[in-house]
């Protein structure tokens, strides 16, 4: 998967969690939590969706890597290189 495709994937999952999420002003290097009002349950949903869709196992200690859109892409890129 390309970096752009991974970005779209993450945004698509967030959209499924919160259909009102507004990505217009989203800054990729800033925490998703503050900008989109995501809580820890939302991050768990992202982890579960990634496992469901791409069989990815993300251990709990890696959850902080999902903080911003950029860090998501950086973290997921090697894991999804063959997807």
């Amino acid at each position: 998967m390309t970096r752009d495709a991974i970005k779209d994937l993450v945004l698509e999952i967030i959209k499924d969690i919160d259909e009102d999420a507004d990505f217009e002003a989203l800054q990729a290097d800033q925490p998703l939590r503050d900008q989109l009002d995501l809580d820890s349950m939302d991050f768990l949903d992202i982890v579960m969706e990634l496992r469901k869709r791409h069989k990815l196992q993300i251990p709990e200690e890696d959850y902080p890597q999902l903080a911003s859109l950029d860090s998501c892409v950086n973290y997921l890129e090697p894991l999804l290189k063959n997807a």
Partner: protein
Amino acid sequence: MPFSLDKAAASYDVIVIGSGLGGLTSAKRLSYCGYKVLLLEFHHQLGGLATWFKRNGHIFDISLHGFPYGMVKTCKKYWTKEITESIVQLKNIVFDNPQFSLKTTFDRIDFTALLNKKFKIPQPVIDRFFATVAGMNFYDDQTMTTRELFEEFFPGRTDVHRLLMEPITYANGSTLDDPAITYGIVFSNFMNKGVFTFEGGTDKLIRLMTEDLERNGVMICTNAKVDRIVVEKGKVRGVEVNGRVITAPAVVSNSGITNTIYDLAGREAFTSDFLEQADAIRVNNSSCQVYIGLKKDADIEDRGDLLFTSSAPVFDSAELLDMQTHSKTFSVYYPKTRPGHDRYAIVASMNSRYEDWNRLSPVAYESEKQALIARTLIDLNRYFPGVNDKIDWLEAATPKTFNRYTLHTHGTSFGTKFEGLAVSRSIFKEVPGLFHVGSVGIIMSGWLGAINYGVIVANDVDSYIRSI
């Protein structure tokens, strides 16, 4: 419609023991992940403590007194639109005790105004207090108690302590000596937007959840008491129920954490280190309730939805637990609560200890129950003068009642104290394939806590099954 046990297959991907809100939600999430799920419930009705009963044309709700706004988001994500849309606000929360009487929407804006104007707390202190509790996380330092938190912000102000603590003590059994974070997390949840309820009643919620599970292919069996979780070679193999073994690589127990460890899996399944942690778990208190039904054509004035009443001079956690407590809540169910059902019902709730009721002889038990009803009516008459003549149903429940219906150790209403959470979270690391979901650690209790915990545990189960 749930099935009887003989319809269950010989094996499943996951077996969920117990249909409390935690068990129901785990079952839902796991079926959504594509697993073949069996849900086994001991009782004939689903819902666990989220339950109701019918008498004489009345429907009495047991645990529908109020939950935080977070339920809207949670039900929208993990259940259905219809469930989400039935959540409505309870706008009139009343406090009445020797220190103060007031009516509030129980949210941050209203509480800020009350603390400032009525209790004369300077605005910056209020703001700092709210910021402090809102910033609390369960992994934060647990050494500070709620008592210390209150003393830091409102030294010596027992009236303010009461305003802040009394509702939370009823909501989850916590006391001034529990970790401040358990208080802060739950209090902040409520302060977000106030107190909400489920229009249509608990029976409607559980019916909608059951239908949703059935649509998702979950096999549900009631009157099915699991006697044992079968553990072989250190791993879960399935469950034994009515003399039959049904196999599954993963079992999620929504039975109490102590019941799960001691009664279902058995001590022999665990290491001594783990048992040491488990043995230190304190279960929370239980409850007493008095169910009051009004005659068909009777009505009462709107005095509020949820009344926190007490004639005790100051708030005292021990006083609230006493058999003779002068403190109780009244939940008033007006006809609007259940559209189409035009009856009034009132449920009085008190916190209570199992031991106090369990040690009574059968005769003393019955007479204490009657005394409880009599005391409740005296208190109720302060808010609804002359109500006695309008009543056509009176019944009481005690900690023994809660124990009988849920099997929970000492009839606990709100799971365990904080230490139960770590044990519940780590049980699958101890016995692969064995998971626990349900009220633990104070923060994972209540309707919202139990549902969210159901999602968290389903994530662990999914991760585990995919790794084997």
